[in-house]
Structures are given as structure tokens and as C-alpha cells.
């Protein structure tokens, strides 16, 4: 098997605090509007009338859980296939990178990616995305998001080893089906996690300060 670096995400441990997203933003000095790592809160369920007291409502199957996402460094990177300028490439260790000197800023990869990973930097006129903190990796350090998580819900390693340890789940709502691009991600689901494509909930966007 070819080497394939991958993220691990433990949805059962994640509290949705977004420290990972902030660590990423801080480390990579990302401008407003660009977030290489994002956390999505997904929830559903409803309320039913109390059988004896119809004036009261009781919660029914109400659930919410959080999913931390970044570039999945896919085994079949649609962004790299789509890029007309050969600016996106897969490194030997499986990390998908954008060469910003080659990028022409056509934003076609943005349409091709199912995870919203490549994001356009207006100021530079090129696409940018998670590079797995390649400089940290080279120094033997962990990616910023992994180290910052207070719940230890994020990890990384060889995809095969992660799968042996944690199983094969790579698509829970609200992530898209893994058939599209074979993402290099291993997920431990939350107890309420629903498989991709079979969700009954929705992404919940609460206003943030």
C-alpha cells in the first residue's frame, strides 16, 4: 500500500469548541473568510405533546453533534484532477498540496471538492487549503489542530494503521458520501451520528461573536 497520511476524528469526544479551527487559523495566519479547518454542528429531532398533558411539549430524539473537518487529503483528489494548471498535487506521503506559484486562481477546484477545502484568497489571487502543517511535520511536530484539541478528539497517522485501530468509518452526516473522492479520514462516530446520505437532521449555524 502506498503511504497515505490521514486525520483521525473522534466525534464521540468532540464538544464543538472549535479550538482546532482557531489553532489552524492562528498557525496559518488565515484572513477573514478563509478557514482551512471548520467545525459543523449537526442536529435534529423534534418535540411531541405530552400524552397526559397536551399543553406540555417533551423533547423527542433531539440530538446534536459536532464534526471537525479540513482537507481530507483524498486518495482520489478531485481537486488535483480538475486543476488545469497542475498546481495541486499529491505528495509521496499522501498529503495533497497546492503550489501557489502554479495556481492561476480559476477556482475550478472549489467546484470539484466535496469538502469545501480549497478556498480562494482574494488578496493573493490563488487557492489555499490545509497543507497538513507540512512544516510542523517536517520538524517532527503534530499539526496545530491536533495539538490544540482539549478533548484529544483529533489525531493523525498512516491511514492503514488508523483504520486498524479505529475502523473504516469515513462518512457521517453532514459529510458527503466517501464514494466521491475516497477521503483519507477515520472517524469514531458520536452515538447520534448518522451515516452520510441518511441524515434526518441539518447543519445548525448559530450566530457567533
Amino acid at each position, binding site marked *: 500500500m502506498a503511504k497515505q497520511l490521514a486525520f483521525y476524528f473522534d466525534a464521540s469526544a468532540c464538544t464543538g469548541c472549535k479550538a482546532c479551527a482557531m489553532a489552524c487559523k492562528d498557525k496559518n495566519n488565515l484572513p477573514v473568510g478563509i478557514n482551512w479547518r471548520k467545525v459543523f454542528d449537526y442536529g435534529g429531532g423534534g418535540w411531541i405533546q405530552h400524552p397526559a398533558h397536551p399543553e406540555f411539549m417533551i423533547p423527542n430524539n433531539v440530538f446534536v453533534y459536532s464534526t471537525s473537518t479540513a482537507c481530507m487529503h483524498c486518495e482520489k483528489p478531485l481537486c488535483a484532477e480538475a*486543476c*488545469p*494548471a497542475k498546481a495541486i498535487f499529491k505528495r509521496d506521503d499522501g498529503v495533497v498540496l497546492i503550489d501557489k506559484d*502554479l495556481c*492561476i*486562481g480559476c*477556482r475550478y477546484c472549489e467546484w470539484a471538492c*466535496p*469538502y469545501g477545502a480549497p478556498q480562494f484568497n482574494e488578496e493573493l*489571487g490563488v487557492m489555499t487549503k490545509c497543507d497538513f502543517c507540512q512544516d510542523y511535520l517536517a520538524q517532527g511536530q503534530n499539526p496545530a489542530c491536533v495539538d490544540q484539541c482539549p478533548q484529544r478528539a483529533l489525531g493523525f497517522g498512516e491511514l492503514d494503521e488508523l483504520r486498524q485501530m479505529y475502523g473504516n468509518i469515513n462518512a457521517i452526516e453532514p459529510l458527503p458520501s466517501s464514494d466521491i473522492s475516497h477521503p483519507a479520514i477515520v472517524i469514531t462516530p458520536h452515538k447520534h451520528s448518522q451515516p452520510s446520505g441518511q441524515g434526518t437532521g441539518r447543519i445548525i449555524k448559530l450566530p457567533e461573536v
Partner: protein
Amino acid sequence: MLRELALIAFTILAQMSVGAFLVLGVVKFFVARKAGQEEADRMGDRSLIAIIIVLGLGMLASLWHLGNPLSAPRAVTNFATSWLSREILAGVVFAVLGLLYAVLQWFKLGPIILRNIIGWLAGLVGIVLVLCMAMVYMLPTQPAWNNLATPISFFTTTLLLGVLAMGAAYVANYAYLKKKNPGCADQQCELLRNVLRWIAVVAVILLGIEFVLIPVYLVSLATGSPQAVESAKLIAGPLGLTFLFRMILAFLGAGVFGFFLYQNAQSAGREKVLSYMAYAAFILVFVAEVLGRFIFYSSQVGITL
């Protein structure tokens, strides 16, 4: 928004020039058999200038949507996997062959058979270009685009704009000929009326294809994936009025004016009316297709986080 305008301009203008080039070739083929090569050239060759200019404007507009326009030439390097690279490559080859044909034809350089081969080759590359344009949008992450409606509608637009643009070009060319040399106009007048009748018939048929395709497409969106349903809601909701205008203008242009064009081309002596009809049909359909392409981009809801 600016980026989408650039893409609308590029796709519409490039498709129009491919369509016009193909129509020019087919008309020329039949006119040459009927009235000789010289009359055929006299009828069509001036429109080559317009076709090249339209294509050039379209390709210029495409640069506008790049974050880094100066490095545009690199966009052809990944033709092994990227349909966008293939599209640009096909566009450049079409432009070069089309320009070569226009120059050879204009100055009557080289044997006619060679010119014709280059012309048909350019037409073939033009068809490949429109196919590549459709494939660019057929991404697994874009349900509103990733279906047969994309190539069918791109080719319908290509041919509809192609025939009506050439209709306008032929009447303009006729007016020019008549002003310059009133004596020569008789045979050209006859040819013009013949061609305009065919153009009207083809335009009405293409309109029919659009009017079947669009409802089928909307139903398939409305019954498709969650993202496709969102696209259908956009077309029915915020884009509804634009959509209605697009349909009405296409019907008026290709249907109503197409019908009158056919009627008025039956007998001689109505060239003035004919030219107004041809211009009006072209302008109305052009606006309709631009609105249609605007809806195409604006109703996109991708599978993405």
C-alpha cells in the same frame, strides 16, 4: 458575480462562434453546389471576421475570472485529467484553425480543397470544444450540472445562436452587396431567401428541443438529490422571473420571428422586412440564451461543506 459574468460571456460567445462557423460551413457547402463557389464565398466570407472577433472577445472574457490572469497559458498543462485544460486547448486550436481558414479564404491562398479541409477540421474541433465545455461542468459534486441536460443544452445553444447569428450576418452581407453593386444582387437575393427559410425552420426545431429539454430537466432536478432539489427551488423561486423572461424571449425570437422570417422569405421584394426579422430573432434569442446561462450558474448548489 463578476466571475460569473466572465464565464457567461466566454461560454455564450465561444458557443455562438462555433455554431456560426458550423452553419457557415454547411450553408456554403450547399450554396456552392447550387450556385458555384464564388457566389457561396461572396455570401458567407465576410461573416468570418465577425466570428473571429466574437471568439476573441469570448476568450478575452474568460481571463477575467482568473485570480492570476497573466499565468493563463499554464491552464492547458493538465489536459491528461482536467476537462478545463482540454476545453482551453480545444478553444485555442479552434481559434487558430478558424483564423487560418479565414485568412486563406479572404486572400484566396492555396487550393480550394486545402482551404475546405482546414475549414471542416476547424468545425470538428469546434464541436469537440463544445463537448469539453459541457464536460467541465459535469462534476460529481455538482448535481445540477452533472447530467445530460448540460451537453444537450450547450449544443442547442451553440446551434440556435449559430443559425440566428448567421441569419443576421447574411442579411447584413446582402445589404452591403446591394449598396456596393446593385446589379449583382439578384442571385444573392434568391440564395438569401432560401437560406433564411432553412434558418427559420432549424431555429424553430431547436426551440422545440429547448422547450422539451427544460421541463424534463426541471422535473429531474425536483425529484433528485437534496442539492438538486435546492437548485430547482432557486429556479422556481428567486430566479423564477428571469426564467420566465428567458422562455418568453426564446419563444418570441426563434418561434414568432422564426415563423415570420419563414413567411417573408417565401417571395421576393421583402428584403427590408426580412432583415429586420433576422436581426430581431437573433437579438431576442441572444438575450434569452444569456439569461439561460445566468440561471445555469446561479442555480448551482454543490455537494460541499
